[in-house]
């Protein structure tokens, strides 16, 4: 059984169809990338999984349970945490406070502090700036904080929406290294990215989306040639 399974998901905004029919699955411990251009329905897919928009048809199952139509809070409690596009950290809370509010849905309140300390060990830069306003961190540090904040809810699946957006190439490398590290530690990840080459290199599998549906799905697993090939084909779409 897959951890997350989407079948025939269709998302419409009024008459506009954002996603026609999407099939996708993420297995336990797997790192899956969903790549595609702007406007192909990637973010709508993230929103549908997270419970922010409701698909018009299809099914979304998490650990075998139908989660379609459930509230965002309920889905988070089931174990899907989202790292939103644009990081969206709380700039006027300290790094430490950002982490503790990340544990809001946890029932083991006493453990939240411990988890926060663990996060600071895992992400040393967050430990270093624990008492600093989060808005003073650099873009890459903020992205680490956004990921750490999502991990604070102890998710079974981490859903990342364009984590490389607006970051310098070098910082993007760091973010991808971090994701690979998380995968090695056993996290299940669904990464939604425009940065196709890097996403394909890092992920176990990828789905390539084009206006409303998946057109290609393959195992990637660090295959440089494949990544380059898809990227050039993919870039070609953009020019077409």
């Amino acid at each position, binding site marked *: 059984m897959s951890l997350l399974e989407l079948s025939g998901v269709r998302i419409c905004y009024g008459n506009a169809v954002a996603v026609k029919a999407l099939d996708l699955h993420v297995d336990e411990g797997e790192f899956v990338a969903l790549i595609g251009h702007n406007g192909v329905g990637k973010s709508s897919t993230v929103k549908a999984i*997270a419970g922010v928009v409701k698909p018009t048809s299809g099914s979304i199952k998490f650990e075998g349970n139908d989660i379609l139509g459930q509230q*965002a*809070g309920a889905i*988070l*409690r089931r174990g899907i*945490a*989202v790292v*939103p596009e644009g990081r*969206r*950290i*709380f*700039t*006027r*809370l*300290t790094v*430490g*406070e950002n982490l*503790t*509010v*990340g544990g*809001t*849905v946890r029932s083991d309140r006493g453990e939240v502090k411990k988890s*926060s*300390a663990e996060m*600071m*060990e895992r992400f*040393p830069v967050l*430990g*270093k*700036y*624990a*008492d*600093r*306003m989060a*808005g*003073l*961190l*650099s*873009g890459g540090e903020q992205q680490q904080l956004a990921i750490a*904040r*999502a991990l*604070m*809810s102890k998710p079974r699946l981490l859903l990342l929406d364009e984590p490389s957006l607006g970051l310098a190439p070098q910082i993007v490398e760091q973010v991808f290294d971090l994701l690979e590290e998380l995968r090695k530690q056993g996290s299940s990840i669904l990464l939604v990215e425009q940065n196709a080459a890097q996403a394909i290199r890092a992920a176990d599998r990828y789905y390539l989306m084009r206006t409303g549906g998946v057109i290609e799905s393959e195992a990637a697993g660090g295959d440089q040639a494949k990544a380059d090939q898809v990227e050039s084909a993919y870039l070609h779409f953009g020019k077409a």
Partner: protein
Amino acid sequence: MKSSVSTWSRWAWLAGLLAVPIIIVTFLISLTNDVSLIQRCTTALILMVMVIGLHVFSGNSGVVSFGSVAFAMIAAFTSALITIPADKKPSLFPDMPDFLNWLLSFTVPVPVGILISVAFTAVIALLVGVPLVRLSGLAAGIGTLAFLVVVQVVVTKWKAVTRGESTMVGVPKETTLWWALGAVVLVIAIAALYQVTRRGRRLIATREDDKAAMSIGISIPIERLWGWVASCSIAAFGGALYGHYIATFSAQTFSIALTFFIIAMLVIGGLGSLTGAVVGVIVVQVLAEVLRTVETQGIGPIPQIDAPGLTEMVLALILLLVLIARPAGITGGREITSWVRRRKGNAPQVAS
């Protein structure tokens, strides 16, 4: 690795750095034995309680409320009704409706009256808050303003209970400079505690980015409701103290003008920080004092300017200037603790 500063130490620093200077200045003022100065200081301290009350909700949630004075009014009238000596009540409230007749038969000491009135107001705040916290922006502003108008109309028209436009008299005048100081220290401690603990941080998170807050499972209505009830209760505390300070008051005392005065203090000080609430009251009160002196007798080389309304006009201009030049207020929405930390050499890194 640097460990996170404990919640308690952050609370102690924030509350201490704000309260200690206020305590010192109040002591110095009390030593002057200048009755009029002491009176003004007392008024400023009571206003500070109300402004801090407003900050607890509006500052932390980013949702402006025009309703806090309504809660101050409810508490002032409630406390008056139960603390006016029982023997005076029948002549003051000859038309008291039957279902409230029990109010005439007893009287409680002022501190008890204040406590009861705050608790009663908190219940009303909870009931009104349930629908109000679902509103944001302009709708929330209008909703809270509407509540203020409703309370004003009820208090003005329900003559049998509130004495309507004739003032409430016979209210024990017990609030002193020391009571007001104690109240300020208490509410600074409460507001600072709220801000550094889980509940307050969640409310601040909803102010910073509501969608991100929802994405990590924060319930915006629930967090706002907590802040709202705490805020209204503190405003009620200020209102009850004010009632027992001026001793004669009517619905006009808790007017829309007072509402705007309180909001102006918070905005000038800096919406979003407790320090802003405290600084705003001090700056506006000192400025108002100077302007009033100019209006009545002149200060040093400045001759008397016989222009009634000068104070209000200049304050309004300053509010405008602050809104234009420094929308985040004098403190920029920062807490005093962040300046102290910077002074200690831990300069913040420039964000990229």
